[in-house]
């Protein structure tokens, strides 16, 4: 079965790519830019006049360009943070699961300890301790998200290691390297891919939350979370400032969730009869 035969995957991936394409090209095509203010047009509603498709904010800046910029930042944070959690989580979990025994016990108790830290507090501390830095947000979110990934990969590795086909490979003379690269890793791919698509929305939410608190990206840069924050302050006078970024955020989150569900179904259908 081709992966595109799955409608959930096709549709959600299509919407996500569409949003990403507009976010990349939109600001470039638009005559407006994200920093210039226009005090003649404060809080004007969406219109084709001056091509303010999403209206303007309380400083008269074009909301369309700012929203697209927010989408870029949000997607970037999500993907980089997920990559960070993917790399740390898979490596850590796979080593714990493969080596097993005492090493596994120590490694997993460390994960349990980290779980016990209130992680928002942890991120806020990081933000305060270091200069506010675009990059730090990625690292902070990724460094927190990898815990779940490590647990999942470790559990899966442990159960794969006991499966009969791995035992058959051991009997056949396969060494550790071959077992890991040919038998364990390929069987991990499905669950890891699915889990990554499910951590992306988490990372987006965390970034939005931090930005909403004012701890995320700083002006004049923006993200969907920061835009929603600004929109909330103006929601009685300029509802579009809240509704448009909030809707986009919701659509992106839903698409990633559906993509994860679709991928899970796809891998299930392919390898269990």
């Amino acid at each position: 079965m081709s992966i595109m035969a799955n409608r959930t995957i096709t549709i959600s991936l299509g919407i996500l790519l569409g949003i990403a394409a507009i976010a990349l090209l939109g600001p470039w095509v638009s005559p407006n830019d994200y920093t210039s203010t226009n005090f003649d047009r404060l809080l004007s509603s969406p219109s084709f006049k001056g091509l303010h498709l999403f209206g303007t904010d309380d400083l008269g800046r074009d909301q369309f360009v700012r929203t697209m910029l927010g989408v870029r930042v949000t997607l970037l944070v999500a993907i980089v943070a997920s990559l960070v959690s993917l790399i740390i989580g898979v490596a850590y979990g796979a080593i714990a699961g493969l080596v097993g025994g005492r090493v596994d016990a120590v490694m997993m108790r460390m994960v349990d300890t980290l779980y016990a830290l209130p992680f928002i507090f942890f991120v806020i501390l990081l933000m305060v301790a270091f200069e506010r830095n675009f990059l730090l947000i990625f690292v902070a979110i990724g460094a927190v998200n990898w815990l779940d990934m490590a647990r999942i990969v470790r559990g899966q590795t442990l159960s794969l290691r006991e499966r009969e086909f791995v035992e058959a490979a051991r009997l056949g003379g396969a060494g550790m390297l071959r077992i890991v690269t040919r038998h364990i890793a390929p069987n991990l791919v499905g669950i890891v891919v699915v889990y990554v698509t499910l951590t992306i929305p988490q990372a987006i939410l965390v970034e939005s939350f931090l930005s909403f608190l004012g701890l995320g990206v700083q002006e004049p840069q923006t993200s969907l979370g920061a835009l929603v924050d600004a929109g909330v302050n103006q929601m009685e006078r300029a509802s579009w400032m809240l509704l448009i970024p909030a809707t986009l955020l919701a659509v992106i989150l839903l698409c990633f969730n559906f993509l994860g569900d679709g991928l899970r179904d796809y891998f299930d259908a392919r390898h269990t009869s």
Partner: protein
Amino acid sequence: MSLLDVSGLTVRYGDDTVVDGVDIFVERGESVGIVGESGSGKSQSVLAILGLLPGSARVAGSVEFDGQQLLGADIDTLNQVRARRIGVVFQDPAQALNPYVRIGTQLAQVLISHGLAGKADAPARVIDMLDKVGLPDAASQYRAYPHQLSGGMRQRVMIASALIAEPDLLIADEPTTALDVTVQAQILELLEDIRDNTALLLITHDLGIVAGYCEHMIVLEQGRVVDAGQTTSLFAAPRHAHTRSLIAAAPRVDRGEAPIAVAGKTRLSVSDAVIDYGNLRAVNEVGLTVRESETVAVVGESGSGKSSLVRAVLGLVPMVSGRVVYAGEPLTGPVERRSLAVRRDLQLVYQDPVGALDPQMRVRDIVAEPLLIHAPRLGAAERRRRVAAMLDLVGLGEALLHRFPHELSGGQAQRVAIGRALILDPSVLICDEAVAALDGTVRDQVLELLRDVQRETGLSIIFISHDLAVVRSISHRVLVMYMGRLVELAGNASLFSSPRHPYTRALLDAVPVPDPVAVRKPPPLRGEVPSLLHPPAGCVFHPRCRYAEARCSAERPKVRDVEGTRVACHLAERLAL
């Protein structure tokens, strides 16, 4: 009017027709068997009769029970009929009982919900029923949870719950498939004794069970009824070719030609093997030798230690003590520490072929992998040639080369697993229940393949099985194990015609014979295998042995030679079994 009158029953999933115009008649008090291989639609038919199919199934035809149409009936009507008038026993009692509710409460619930007893008098009737199905100490077991009972006891509870409302029809879907053979004999006997005037519809893949316990039989193939009639006349004169091949493929434990004994060099020997799992002794001083071109079967019920023994030989579980000698060299340590040459020579085939094949690899890569490890300098073209030749040998076409394991049938997957084991030209092949999951005709083909390879290459085979009829047809010598101990080790002919140990005799008597005119023997053993954590003193078999004497419970019998048979029984010389 028939009690159950099913006509033109059809079940479809999308374009897939799994049951195609099936007719089933069951008269009051009679027993009808439905037989067929996997995928023949026998279970689907039963689920359709009971209205238990998932919503995606489209069902057509007519299911009349005592004049009442069940197909399309509303849920209240169905619930009135099910349990009250039709009792059901499924294959796996562990899944059919609620693990959080005491068994007595579950049974009482059946009575109370159908208004057959009040809260006050239900327990007494439940205990009475549990007693009838042979649950020892029924009054105290009333308060037991399902997990506290053995598989056989749970199945007794299921039968009790199916019969407690005194239904007119009992439907049993593979009721003994998950059970050991001596327990199976007890359950089948119970089903027959207890049902009085209840009609029985028994679904099974085992012709021996139909021959012994059903007056009428229906043969299904690919969703269609191909043969139906009285069991005795169908066995005597099967009308359809499929019925003939089913009967021909059914192995018989009561007769058969023993493979001619071989006298090659000893290839592999195990002596005094002891294997512990924590404080549980799974294998206790068992020895075994295998010669060139020889098949040695290891038989026993679950918990007998047969799998542990061969896993220790392969270095997958450690031995506490004992020796394994292969080709004159001692084998020690886990498999990873053994030389590649040894690992090439000893190969294993598993019971579940799909689980033993990497789901992410294609057939060609699975079969080629041992070559990559053991002959890395082989060219890609030569490797492809050998893989193709091996698939040809195990009877699979080139079309399968690019398939994934889940795209194969059970028989095909098992051939791939055998191909992977044989591609390095091993000298010892260990088959751990390798044909247990296969249908009769496929099983015969796989066994024939093993014989052919053995004839050509002098392969030694250790054949682990719980199925004595299959063992009779393939093995040169047989090792019988019970509770981790050697019970009897003898040549095929002498073991099957004149066993020396009462347990061997009991195992043989417990196997249903696929012949309705053969004399059916009463269940040879009462009770079940004791816990390995608390093995009986003296001979471990004495609590279930009908010949046991005072000495048997006091003194552990040594393994000794009696007329060429290795046997562990004090009475071996005296008993005429």
